[in-house]
């Protein structure tokens, strides 16, 4: 019997494809944001509101990841330059998007006519934290009805986020959500993350988030 030393990251295959995706996006000057949250936190609503506000400034494409259905793709269709729906039901991972799924989605997008791609990940706070997709920024949404303890229960996804959005701020008078405690948790886990408080329903705070996106795109172009 012989022992062969391997020391190989098991996620390497995913990470290799992710860096290929990133390179392709950069070649076409496309900025890409991976939006993650629990189901119902407002990923689709945020993407819709953002596209409406940035309509005159950016051409936006959307990659929708869901276990099943094209419900979300239909919702964003009218505002987006291009939409690709990925159904993960029959894939090796049904609970998260993986880099290979994004690689094939990018093939059917007119990248030269797009400035920004939102990847709407599968609604889940656990699995998407393990898989990078080639995105430039990772964004997590928490919404008030979920409670302020999500960063304590699902720390990994918040640790790797570039920005954290607190959505459904219009519900603050009706739910017990301690904003200060939530912010403290995020700042403890990930002091670099930007935190945005907004409501996709009323539109309050969305402008500030859009401004952040524009800044990130500018910084990325300068960097290249």
């Amino acid at each position, binding site marked *: 019997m012989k022992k*062969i030393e391997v020391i190989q*990251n*098991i996620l390497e295959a995913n990470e290799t494809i992710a860096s290929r995706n990133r390179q392709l996006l950069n070649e076409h000057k496309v900025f890409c944001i991976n939006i993650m949250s629990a189901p119902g936190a407002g990923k689709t609503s945020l993407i819709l509101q953002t596209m409406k506000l940035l309509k005159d400034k950016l051409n936006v494409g959307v990659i929708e990841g869901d276990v099943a259905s094209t419900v979300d793709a239909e919702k964003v269709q009218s505002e987006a330059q291009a939409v690709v729906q990925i159904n993960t039901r029959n894939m090796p991972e049904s609970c998260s998007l993986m880099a290979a799924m994004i690689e094939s989605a990018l093939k059917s997008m007119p990248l030269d006519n797009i400035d920004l791609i939102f990847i709407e990940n599968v609604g889940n706070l656990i699995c998407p934290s*393990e898989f990078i997709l080639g995105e430039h920024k990772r964004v997590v949404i928490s919404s008030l009805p979920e409670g302020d303890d999500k960063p304590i229960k699902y*720390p990994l996804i918040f640790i790797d986020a570039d920005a954290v959005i607190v959505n459904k701020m219009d519900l603050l008078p009706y739910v017990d959500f301690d904003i200060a405690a939530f912010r403290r*948790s995020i700042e*403890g*886990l990930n002091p670099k993350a930007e935190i945005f408080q907004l409501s996709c329903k009323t539109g309050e705070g969305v402008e500030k988030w859009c401004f952040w996106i524009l800044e990130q795109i500018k910084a990325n172009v300068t960097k290249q």
Partner: protein
Amino acid sequence: MHELGITENIVNIALTKAGEAQASKINQINLVIGEMSGFVADCIQFYFDSLSKDTIAQGAVLHFELVPAQLRCRNCSTIFTPKDTLWACPECRERSVEISKGRELFIESIEVE
């Protein structure tokens, strides 16, 4: 939940390495998995049994070295093992921490003949 894709990678890596070494059978695969990586050893074993069928990895023992979580306080640099989910530093009580160990996920070695 998301162990199927991971286990496919494990089988692929092990078969490639065994092939390079011209091995005829894989007896054991030694894995290092961090407590916080979110992967469940029993799930990996379950998928492994079906994915390795009819390959030279069939019947191989999966050995898991589980790495406990270890945190580092950003305030006073104390390294500690979290006792609860609040992740407060036992020295200064600050809840500003980074993970120093526990996110590992790699194949350390394979044993072949």
